[in-house]
């Protein structure tokens, strides 16, 4: 169950970026998870829900982009998407290739924060006066 550790690293990274952006509640977090990364999506979701409780990202939507494994097949001279992660054999010709082009991702893509609070009423009236 290393998904809990991964979820905690997600929370640490997100917290850093949110603080740098001036804070705010997190609405959504987008991750890219390769099928070769040994992370189980359901376990990651429940781990995140547990570990984010009480933080600014509690209740945030976890968007997970599932990245299939892609290899470079030297026989076909082409990049091929694999149906799973049990074998690195080219689905077209059967040649096994260790040249993995995608599928190992464990990436934090983006963070959606709640909108900045609207300008205060005083500012709004000042702006209105100024425009009048």
């Amino acid at each position, binding site marked *: *169950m*290393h998904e809990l*550790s*991964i979820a905690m*690293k*997600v929370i*640490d*990274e997100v917290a850093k*970026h*949110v603080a740098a*952006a001036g804070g*705010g509640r997190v*609405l959504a977090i987008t*991750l890219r998870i390769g099928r*070769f*990364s*040994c*992370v189980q999506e359901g376990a990651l979701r429940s781990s995140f829900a547990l570990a984010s409780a009480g933080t600014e990202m509690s209740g945030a939507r976890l968007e997970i982009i599932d990245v299939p494994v892609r290899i470079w097949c030297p026989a076909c001279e082409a990049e091929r998407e694999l149906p799973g*992660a*049990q*074998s*690195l*054999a080219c689905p077209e010709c059967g040649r*096994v*290739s*260790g040249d*993995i082009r995608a599928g190992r991702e*464990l*990436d*934090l*893509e*983006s*963070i*959606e*924060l*709640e*909108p*900045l*609070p*609207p300008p205060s009423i005083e500012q709004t009236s000042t702006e209105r006066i100024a425009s009048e």
Partner: protein
Amino acid sequence: MSQPRILEVRTKILKVNDETARAMRHRFVEAGVLVVNVVSSPGSGKTALLEETLTRLKARGMSVAAIVGDLETDNDARRLARSGVPVRQIETHGLCHLEAAMVEERLAGWDLAAIEILFIENVGNLVCPTSWDLGEHLRVALLSVTEGEDKPLKYPGLFNTSDLAVITKVDLAAAVEFDRTLALANIEQVRPGMPVLEVATKNGAGVDAWIEALLARRVTLLKSR
């Protein structure tokens, strides 16, 4: 009207671990210490092979040390300490893998320049240690004949990130009807070209070749400096 703010961060989730590991690897190279991360499922013979390895390397006058990760007990660390070399324990208290920062913490006070090979015995697990770089130069995946030939296919991530596979307990191969050809083919499926060694720690078969492979790797490391 205010819009939600989108931060396009595009970063690795394990960025901090990767950075710590990279810095440690640099320290290890500077100090001339080869670091070997040994991974396998529980009961595949990591501790037995390492105890034998530490004993033999020490007998050859080499300076070796080990860090042992275990969930709760220090049984493995005590077994390795019988070899007479410095051994440190990381009790992970339920955590199924080691992380770079844990290893870094355990290095405190050790003169790395005085160590030639440092072994890290990871927690027995074929999934979780995969993504955690510990700053090693060599990741060794053990597969015992008693586990069955299909382990590489079930845990492709771990075998794929390894540099060397060691099939252990080969003295039991006949008894468990281990299909060696199939096992080698399965390793090839997930990590084409990876060297594979076969050992039986109990009777010493193949242990010399394993030791020689480690020494050769250390020579390569020293040349790379």
